[in-house]
């Protein structure tokens, strides 16, 4: 990465002999169901006392219990971020809606010794997500990117939430006048029932919207589907888990979307399969464009009835219900003055 240009003439790394040491800061916290929790934000301040810039933000979601069926994915954990008092996220957004999907996000580790003996270990699942920033985020000395998590209750278990900031230390003389600050806002639809067609739902105008008084450059949309399947297995007690295959079922054939802008521009005129707009493989659609202030996007989501089947479409006897909701986020950046 070429360094120095965005810092004007204040930074000439070659003359200073500066090494730009890499830096990774990490913090975690336990978040109960329905509660908010902040990691130790002091752990996210550069300990060298110098400014630094963040290139990538990673989130981790880990189950804190040994419930057999519950899977911890980025759908269950929301995050709120702010930089020097400025919004990086529009309130809470799901951690899996910040960056494009990677090849492997969900792992099936064997954290509990009992699982080595009793089986069922394959259902255990932790998740990790990466958000590679489109532009480095300068962080002044003694300042932290403020992080707060929320366990939104999609899975009924406490979650161990972690954040890792990856970047490099900058010289003290480095102080840009303007910084490209990332921004994510997300629309979550209602939950739709697997067996029923669902009425179209339109995102509110003020969600996927440029709330700033400067132009907002949108780099991509990210569209994910959170599926929730509730079973009465494990001794008859109803448990909830998020099933990847169910997610594909909803995503593949059951959800369609329309997309337009508040200034009248049509993005997707007719109902289109959700994945055909927001990407099949890594759930992203790169759409670099500029949103003027007070302009935004509007997404309309529809749930189709399950297609005809050779037999009657009914839930399996051990499934209480199967539902899913869509998460469509808008990821971009705008320029802010450094305080």
């Amino acid at each position, binding site marked *: 990465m070429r360094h120095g240009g965005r810092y004007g003439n204040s930074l000439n790394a070659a003359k200073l002999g500066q090494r730009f040491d890499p830096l990774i800061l990490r913090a975690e916290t336990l978040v109960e169901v329905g509660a908010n929790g902040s990691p130790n934000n002091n752990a996210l301040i550069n300990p060298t006392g110098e400014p630094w810039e963040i290139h990538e933000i990673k989130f981790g979601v880990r189950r804190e219990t040994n419930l057999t069926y519950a899977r911890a994915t980025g759908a269950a954990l929301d995050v709120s971020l702010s930089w020097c008092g400025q919004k990086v996220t529009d309130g809470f957004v799901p951690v899996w809606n910040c960056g494009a999907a990677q090849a492997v996000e969900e792992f099936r580790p064997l954290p509990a010794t009992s699982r080595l003996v009793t089986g069922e270990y394959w259902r255990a699942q932790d998740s990790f997500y990466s958000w590679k920033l489109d532009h480095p985020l300068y962080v002044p000395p003694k300042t932290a990117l403020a992080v707060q998590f929320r366990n939104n209750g999609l899975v009924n278990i406490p979650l161990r939430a972690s954040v890792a900031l990856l970047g490099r230390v900058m010289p003290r003389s480095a102080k840009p006048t303007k910084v490209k600050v990332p921004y994510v806002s997300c629309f979550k639809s209602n939950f739709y029932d697997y067996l029923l067609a669902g009425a179209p739902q339109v995102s509110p105008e003020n969600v996927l919207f440029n709330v700033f008084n400067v132009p907002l450059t949108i780099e991509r949309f990210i569209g994910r589907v959170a599926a929730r399947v509730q079973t009465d297995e494990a001794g008859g007690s109803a448990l909830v888990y998020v099933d990847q*295959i169910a997610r594909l079922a909803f995503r593949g054939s059951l959800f369609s979307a329309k997309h337009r802008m508040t200034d009248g521009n049509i993005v997707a005129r007719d109902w*289109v399969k959700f*994945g*055909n707009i927001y990407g099949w493989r890594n759930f992203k*659609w790169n*759409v670099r464009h500029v949103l003027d202030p007070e302009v935004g996007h509007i997404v309309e989501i529809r749930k189709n009835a399950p297609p*005809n*089947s050779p037999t009657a479409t009914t839930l399996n006897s051990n*499934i209480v219900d199967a539902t899913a909701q869509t998460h469509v986020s808008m990821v971009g950046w705008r320029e802010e003055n450094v305080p």
Partner: protein
Amino acid sequence: MNHDAPITLDASVIMDRGNGGLDVDLAAMQTTSRDWLKITELRVFIDPGQSQSNSSEQIDFGFMVDVSISVGNEDLTTGFIGTPSHPTGERIAYIPAFLLGPRIYQRFSTINNSNAQFAADTHAYAVQNSYAWTLQRALYVPPNTPIKFKVRRSSTIALLDDATLYPNPFTVEVGAVGTRLAVKPRLSSRSMPHLHAWSPRNDDSTRIESGEAFRNLHKQSLRLTRLTGATATNLGASINGISIDVRQDNELTPDPTLIQIYDANNQDVIVPLPPVPLSASNPNAPVPISSLFLAKTNSVRISDSLQQNQTYRMIVSPVAAAPASNLLRLPMIALESFREVPL
């Protein structure tokens, strides 16, 4: 409109068996404004629904659905497809959707009692396929010009699109993704992508040359950028209780297909590594298809050019005898190119 804005043009058709060619909704494939479009990707999505008899997880429906794409007077696709009456290929505007680009499987489980259940690991999968042609150079589309898609279900090849296994309609959704431009682009020329497919039928032990070499009929030189290829295989019979699959089988052992490709100078463009033993039946050392194309993408990037009236041609040789009487092997290879058209 003050700024460029994203756009996706999409339309869907329902294809019964034997549909010989359906236009998609042209109105859906153009903008109603007077803006230029900058298209970066063309795609085809095939949803067989849940009503087919075969719910195996490795089906490539892109072998059963052909697509023809054109913009204005320009055909972006041409091909020679083997049929029983024209085993070495008849010239048509269609190419198998599989050859558009790397395909993505979309597996989904049914949730009813007979087919699948969520609770245990006993899902039965149905498959949807998505194929995307990511253009090497963006395609600029003038105002009021539709991107025409025609699709057909190639049920003339009965062994691929088996009437027993796939008795019901497919839903095919086509799309073009890009940017609506706020101002008319300043271009001295316009890049025009093209995809040409060869698919000589290859279900016996004969050595088949492509029915007609691919010839550059334009004044401008063609920049050749990618080869995509696979052998569509109907495994021919129920194996271990699993229904018949139609899928790409570049990795069958032994390789199902040997190929040679000759460039404008009539030179073999593939240098076999390791060398394939020469023999009387194999005089020019064709290479196994799996050694040419990457397994994940079924494609390989090339950098070559074709001047006006120069040709590319392909020779296919089968390797192994068919293990089942009704086995079908259908090699499919596509050549991606573009040319710059002066405005």
